[in-house]
């Protein structure tokens, strides 16, 4: 798209009312979907983007495998492990993606609750990152569940309220709705429905506080789930008292760093879509986020060490698993902390962005260690998932990236929707109908 726009500088991208010969007319939905390009133009730019070819290749292999999983069953796709019941779909897709999606509640509460309006250029990106992460975690769950068509059962058919997973199910479902409401603002702007937008705006504070509550609980609950398996998870990754805090606290820098990484990718690959407000503030905001993330990482580091000391697990550090633990902490936490702190202090954005990457990888590695790699460590062998499981995981992740990009290209996330509602009013006045803002 970037290349295409460079060579076709007269193309008009949807971000307001039309400015060409149809001046003042609203874009139709089809025009908005193609971003103002004609079909031929749209296809031309899509073909020129090598990333699309990569996606096409993954999808060509991956979609048949996903279909195969539902036709031939889980055993065909994952080998049907009896002792390591949770594989990559949950280990990476649910436990890995949810902490990186805590950006939604953090950016929302920074702006709405704490009044940090300077964070606004990244607020919508943070929320979008949140909702997509959760949504695709549910998609991963649907692929992993033996009977995904029974997903609503814990809501409507049979309650198991003493279960941590029951809490996760309810909170993720509720929180997805909260995020959908928060994310509907740019959607309403894009669709040209100012009334809906006004309603959501009034709920902003309530939604942000709901986001904090639900996130505290279900991020923690994903950790508490592992408290069911003492003796199976290696002691260095297990703490029945603190496990939920480890998961909750590490999700905070994880989510912030995800915003840093995504916005860096965005500014490098789709700068045409970002407005000046986004571009000019990005470096400054990355420094703010890095400060927050490094504080989070420091806290996380301290409580992980407290956990080792609390249960007196020092002896394990001298074992092979101890080396692996020190690698996770060393790269994912200590190195990230140094990179982010030094980067924020010296305003070195390269260090910050590198530190954001290592933080994210550290969080994912931690979740994989808890639920996959050290799980059943006493049995001595690490289960390597079969290739189909990898393929399905990669494919769903690529669908996630494609969806992410689809929305960023269109909805006003990285830019402001320039249409003034006043102009809509004028347009609608012709047909005699004013938007019924006050009635709602």
């Amino acid at each position, binding site marked *: 798209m970037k290349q295409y726009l460079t060579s076709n500088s007269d193309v008009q991208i949807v971000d307001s009312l039309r400015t060409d010969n149809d001046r003042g007319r609203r874009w139709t939905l089809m025009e908005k979907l193609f971003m103002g390009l004609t079909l031929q133009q749209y296809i031309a730019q899509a073909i020129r983007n090598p990333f699309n070819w990569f996606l096409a290749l993954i999808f060509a292999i991956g979609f048949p495998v996903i279909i195969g999983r539902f036709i031939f069953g889980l*055993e*065909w796709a994952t080998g049907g492990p009896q002792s390591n019941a949770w594989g990559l779909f949950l280990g990476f897709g649910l436990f890995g993606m949810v902490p990186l999606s805590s950006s939604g509640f953090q950016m929302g509460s920074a702006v709405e*609750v704490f009044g940090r309006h300077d964070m606004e250029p990244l607020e*919508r990106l943070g929320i979008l990152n949140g909702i997509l992460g959760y949504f695709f975690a549910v998609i991963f769950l649907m692929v992993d569940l033996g009977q995904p068509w029974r997903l609503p*059962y814990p809501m409507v058919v*049979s309650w198991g309220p003493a279960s941590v997973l029951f809490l996760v199910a309810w909170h993720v479902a509720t929180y997805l709705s909260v995020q959908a409401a928060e994310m509907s603002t740019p959607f309403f702007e894009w669709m040209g429905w100012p009334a809906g937008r006004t309603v959501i*705006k009034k709920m902003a504070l309530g939604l942000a506080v709901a986001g904090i509550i639900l996130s505290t609980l279900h991020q923690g609950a994903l950790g508490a789930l592992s408290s069911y398996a003492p003796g199976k998870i290696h002691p260095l990754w297990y703490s029945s008292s603190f496990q939920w805090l480890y998961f909750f606290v590490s999700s905070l820098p994880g989510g912030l760093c995800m915003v840093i990484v995504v916005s860096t990718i965005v500014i490098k690959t789709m700068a045409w879509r970002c407005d000046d407000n986004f571009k000019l503030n990005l470096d400054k905001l990355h420094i703010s986020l890095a400060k927050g993330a490094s504080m989070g990482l420091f806290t996380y580091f301290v409580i992980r060490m407290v956990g080792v000391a609390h249960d007196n697990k020092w002896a394990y550090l001298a074992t092979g698993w101890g080396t692996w633990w020190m690698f996770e902490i060393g790269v994912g936490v200590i190195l990230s902390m140094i990179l982010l702190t030094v980067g924020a202090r010296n305003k070195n954005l390269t260090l910050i962005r590198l530190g954001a990457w290592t933080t994210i990888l550290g969080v994912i590695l931690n979740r994989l260690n808890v639920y996959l790699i050290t799980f059943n460590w006493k049995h001595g062998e690490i289960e390597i998932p079969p290739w189909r499981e990898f393929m399905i995981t990669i494919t769903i992740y690529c669908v996630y990236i494609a969806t992410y990009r689809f929305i960023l290209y269109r909805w006003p996330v990285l830019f402001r929707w320039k249409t003034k509602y006043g102009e809509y009013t004028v347009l609608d006045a012709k047909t005699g109908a004013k938007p019924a803002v006050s009635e709602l």
Partner: protein
Amino acid sequence: MIDRRDFLKGCLACSVTAASISVVGKDAFAAGSFEGYPDAMGVLVDLTRCVGCRSCEAACNNEQKLPDPDLPFDDQSVFKEERRTTDKAYTVVNKYEIADKDTLFRKMQCNHCNEPACLTSCFVNAYTKTKEGAVIYNSKVCVGCRNCMIACPFNIPAYSYSSPTNPLIKKCIFCYDTRLKNGRPPACVEICPQQVMTFGHRSDLLAIGHERIKNDPAKYVNKVYGEKEVGGTSWMYLSSVDFDKVGLDNHMQNEPIISNVKDFLGMVPMVLSIWPALFTGIHLLATKNKGEHGDHDHEEGDQQ
């Protein structure tokens, strides 16, 4: 257990009025663990008697109408590697070579915990601990999350992954439907030619177990495995060697698995009650002097 589970249900449902409930909660938690139903049945397994004939495996296969095994039940070559229960075998016998001692065999199956981790981890309440002591499973509501397999400290529940349309948890149910309900012992106990297993009330079995140890302290390790482990189990074991050597975790916690998540679950209603006021308060403090009631937008003033 029922009391606590109802209590937790209350906690979640009434989270808004949680302050008062949680005061009750402390007492409920302090009341200690569920000790099992008074008339619960159990089985005492004496490992010193087992000769590894695998007739219990055959009886189970027949009683539960499981598919034919790959190797016949009299084939001793299966002992070459340690096996676990699967969706096609609810009980398996493993062989343990003990240095300086005889070879020991141990049959494994669901131990039917007093306060089962599978039951308490299940988010659709698919498991039931019956008053007879069996832990049974309702396949009609199971979603297939396999949290019970993660939670079971004995690695017992297996999943029929091979079925694309109706995969289910498969595990020993103490022959509940066909036998236990009517007061009869499970098929494996009845068939055993060595009388390895004794079927009876759990409380009686505990007494028998300790009696045997007392009568022959040189023969047995002084412990009835399952008396206290994870809150107590209906199936219990006597052994002549350390239980670690026959594949039973000797360092299993004595509290039920759910006690590991109790603190977290107890905190839930607190967060739900305190956070709204706390963060709305912070909002008021943080935005006090920042313009008109902190209103703002991406498009300032666009509606004026």
